[in-house]
């Protein structure tokens, strides 16, 4: 597991699941499984912006980017590649 994904998983499990990660997979939808609601999504965005020093635009706030560990990891990789071109 990448460092980024591990950091994200730890945040989700500790903050939203109170440490109980039973049934929480990398492709689990946060919304469909009732793990994160709309206020929780704000918490997640705040975490992403602070932890990874990012600024998220309104149009990026979509399920394809944010609604599972896999989606988050892919989105962050894309976002960080744009911010720090090699």
């Amino acid at each position, binding site marked *: 597991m990448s460092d980024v994904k591990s950091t994200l998983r730890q945040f989700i499990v500790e903050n939203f699941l109170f440490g109980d990660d039973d049934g929480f997979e990398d492709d689990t939808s946060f919304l469909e499984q009732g793990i994160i*609601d709309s206020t929780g999504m*704000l918490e997640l965005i*705040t975490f992403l912006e602070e932890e990874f020093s990012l600024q998220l635009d309104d*149009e990026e706030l979509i*399920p394809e980017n944010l609604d599972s560990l896999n989606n988050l990891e892919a989105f962050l990789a894309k976002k960080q590649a744009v911010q720090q071109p090699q």
Partner: protein
Amino acid sequence: MQKLPKNALQIDPKHETERIVTAMRAAMKNDLKRRGLVVALSGGIDSSVTAVLAVKALGPGRVFGLEMPERQSASETLSLSGMVARHFGIQTAHEDISGILEAYGFYRRYDAAVQSVIPEYGEGWKSKIVSSDIMETRGFSFFSIVAQPPKGEPVKKRLPLNAYLEIVAATNFKQRTRKTLEYYHADRLNYAVSGTPNRLEYELGFFVKLGDGAADIKPIAHLYKTQVYQLAEYLDVPAEIRKRPPTTDTYSMPQGQDEFYFALPYDRMDLCLYGKNNGYTPAQVAESVSLTPEQARRVYADIDTKKSTTRYLHLSPQLVEKIAEIKN
């Protein structure tokens, strides 16, 4: 199943009135065992209809109306709530809650939260919260603050977590302060408190826990807003109230319920919720509410999200084990 009829929410208002007042009398006699009802009057359609139903059920002498404006209330609130009280012979008390809100630090806390996002916000500005339009965006819905300076164009900023939570927490003082006063008057009169939510508000969780969500009886919680209007007409609620657009009367800028909470104006939101509750697919509802099937699907998804997010508002305190001796 065929498409949802546009008149699906048509009720027989006479029959429905009789059904509600019978249930209200039974609840007072069998369960609540109080001598009358306190109803907070906002000048809106729901509280007006609730007050009239209480008068029909118990008589005007057993209904006590409360008008509780504060300095940010819409100017027409008092004249409309007073009109209802006079029209139906209800005794009322006037409680301006601005002083209580000041003591709670509401105005200071609210302004500080807005200033954390819009630093120039201050004296003479007005503001409100709006949600993103689920019809326009394919993402999550988020809240923004709209602030209007005394002169100039409104400013709109998406709210980060802390500012959003602080603004909601502060404005909830209003609903909870009003409920405290409702129970003060109910206690001194040996009355119960009637809540005024309609079906949209009740089912989709548009209320403040221990604020406007607190009550001993909620006589119109089963009625879609369209049906509340039908009852209002039958019950002779003054036309000025029936024609007033629904407002939250919570923020200093006028705020329609559909720009803060509901995805659509109430009449179309009603039909979507009714359709969803009665087994219609989004495609079967879409045409009746002038939406595309995809838009109707988004409204259905939004309903699921709201119900799931606000489920805790309906829950009683969670116990480790059920106390069998307490009967609800």
